[in-house]
C-alpha cells in the first residue's frame, strides 16, 4: 500500500482519557510521522508520551480520533496486523523478558505469529548476531546485565522485522555505558534496515540524535521540529521541567561569562570543534 505523503503514522484529532477519570491524557492530538525517520518524543512525567506510544500499538483504545499505521486504520480487525508492523521496547529490562533464556525470549514473538520452526531458528540466530549476543544464546535472564537484556528485547523486536520501532524509555534504567551502547546499536540498525524509530526519552542528549523532536506537555504537542530549532529555545524546555542538551548548557554558560559564541545550536561534536578553535585563537 502506498503511503500518503510518505507518512507511516497518521494521527488525527486523537483524544484519550482513562475510564472513570476526567482529565484527558491526550487532547485533540494530530501528528504525522514520515517513514524512516528517527523521532524523539520528549516531555516530563505524565505528559502523555507513553500513552501515545501505547495508543499507536493498540495497547490502549482511543476515546476519539483516528490512528493510521502504514495505511491501516486502527480498529479491532486490523489491530494484530498493525502490531506486526510495530516493535516495542519498554523501560524495565526484567519485565519484558518472557522466555526462560535468551533464545526462547527472542523466539516468543515469532511463536506468537506462528512462524514455522526452521525459519524461526534462522531468524533468532540472525537477530542474536545483529545485536551481538550470539555468545549468550542459552543464558537465563538472571545471568545478564540490564543492557544485555535490552539488547535481547531489541533482538526479539528485530526478529519480527517491524517497520516501526518504539522505544518507551528503553534506556532509562541503564547505566550511561549501557545507554550509549544501546542507542548506537539502534542508530546503526536503523541505518541498515531503514525502519522508523520513535524514541520516548527523558535523556535530552539522546533526543539530539533524532531527525525530529516532538515536545509533549499536558497531552498537547507544544513544540515540533529539528533538534537544532528545538534546543535553541531552551527556556521553554526548562519551564516545562525538561533539561537542555549538554552542549547547549555549555554555550549558555559561556555566553553568561561574556565569551563571544554564536547564538546558534551546537551538536556535541560542533561544540568540541568550536571550543578547540576558540582555544587556538586565544
Amino acid at each position, binding site marked *: 500500500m502506498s503511503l500518503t505523503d510518505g507518512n507511516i503514522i497518521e494521527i488525527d484529532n486523537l483524544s484519550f482519557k482513562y475510564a472513570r477519570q476526567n482529565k484527558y491524557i491526550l487532547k485533540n492530538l494530530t501528528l504525522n510521522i514520515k517513514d524512516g525517520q528517527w523521532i524523539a518524543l520528549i516531555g516530563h512525567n505524565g505528559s502523555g508520551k507513553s500513552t501515545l506510544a*501505547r495508543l499507536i*500499538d493498540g*495497547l490502549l483504545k482511543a476515546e476519539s480520533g483516528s490512528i493510521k499505521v502504514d495505511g491501516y486504520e486502527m480498529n479491532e480487525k486490523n489491530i*494484530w496486523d498493525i*502490531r*506486526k508492523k*510495530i*516493535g*516495542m521496547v*519498554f523501560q*524495565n529490562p*526484567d*519485565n*519484558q*523478558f*518472557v*522466555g*526462560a*533464556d535468551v*533464545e*526462547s525470549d527472542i*523466539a*516468543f*514473538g*515469532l*511463536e*506468537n*505469529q*506462528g*512462524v*514455522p*520452526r526452521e525459519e*524461526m*531458528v534462522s531468524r*533468532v540466530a540472525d537477530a542474536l548476531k545483529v545485536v551481538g549476543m550470539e555468545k549468550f544464546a542459552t543464558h*537465563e*535472564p*538472571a545471568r545478564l546485565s540490564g543492557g544485555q537484556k535490552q539488547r535481547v528485547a531489541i533482538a*526479539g*523486536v528485530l526478529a*519480527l522485522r517491524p517497520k516501526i520501532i518504539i522505544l518507551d524509555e528503553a534506556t532509562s534504567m541503564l547505566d550511561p555505558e549501557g545507554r550509549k551502547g544501546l542507542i548506537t546499536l539502534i542508530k546503526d540498525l536503523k541505518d541498515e534496515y531503514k525502519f522508523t524509530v520513535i524514541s520516548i526519552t527523558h535523556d535530552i542528549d539522546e533526543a539530539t540524535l533524532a531527525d525530529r523532536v516532538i515536545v509533549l506537555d499536558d497531552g498537547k504537542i507544544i513544540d515540533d521540529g529539528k533538534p537544532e530549532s528545538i534546543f535553541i529555545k531552551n527556556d521553554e524546555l526548562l519551564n516545562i521541567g525538561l533539561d537542555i542538551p549538554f552542549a547547549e548548557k555549555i554555550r549558555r554558560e559561556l555566553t553568561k561569562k561574556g565569551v563571544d559564541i554564536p547564538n546558534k545550536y551546537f551538536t556535541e561534536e560542533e561544540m568540541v570543534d568550536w571550543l578547540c578553535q576558540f582555544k587556538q585563537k586565544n
Partner: protein
Amino acid sequence: MNKLLLGRYINGNSLIHRMDPRSKLALSFYFIGIIFLANNWQTYLLLIAFTFLGVLLSKIKLSFFIRGIIPLVWLILFTVLLQVFFTNGGHVFWHWGPFTLSKYGLVNGVYVFFRFVLIIVMSTLLTLTTSPLEISDAMESLLKPLKYLKVPVYEISLMLSIALRFVPTLMDETAKIMNAQRSRGVNFGEGSLVEQVKAVIPILIPLFVSSFNRAEDLATAMEARGYKGGEGRTKFRVHVWKLRDTMTIIAFAVLTIALIILKN
C-alpha cells in the same frame, strides 16, 4: 540465589541428561507404579540395582541423592515404624498392648524403607538431570491429551515457565526489600515467633505490590509482541525423541517383566 524451588538441576552431559525430558518424566511416574510390584527380596534387589545403574549413568555424586533423602528421614522412619509394629505374622519376638514385633513386620518395614528410598532417588534423578524448563515442557506435552477436555494446557505450561523465569528476579527483589527494611530498623530472625511473623509483613506487602506491577508490564510486553493465547502458535523449543529414549523404555519394559516373573 536461584538454586531454590525445582532448581536442584545440575548441569551435565551424561546419557541421562541428554534424554528427552518427556521420556524421563513419564518413566519416573511409571517407576513409582511398578515399584509396588515388588514384594520379595529378589524383586527389591533388582529395583535397587536398576536405580543404582541410573544413578551411575547420571555421573552425579551419590551425596546429592542422599541430600534428597535427608529432609524426608522422619517421614520414612515414621512409616517404617508403623509397618514394623502394626504388621502381624510369622514369629512374634515381642508383644505389648497393640504393638507387636513380628518377623513379618520387620521384613515389611525393610521393604517400605527401600520403597521410599527408591522413589526419592528416582525422582531426585529426574530433577537433578532435567532443568525446570525441560520439566515444564515435558509436562505440557504429556498433558496434551487433556486439551480435548478443554484444559488450557498450553497456558498452564506458559504460566509455569514464566513463574520459573521470575523466581530469581523475585529473589533479588526480596533481598533488596529486606535490606531496605533492615536499614529502617526491622530485625529479621530475632525475637519471639509473633515478632518474627510480624517482620515478614513489611517484606511481603512491597513484594506483592511490585509483583503486580511486573505482571502488568509483562502482560503489556507480551501483547505488544503479538501474544493472543495458545491458538495458532508454533514452538521454538522442540524435543527430539532419540534412540536412547527408546532404549530406556525397553529397559523399563524388561524390568517390569522381570519383576512380574520374580514376584511372589
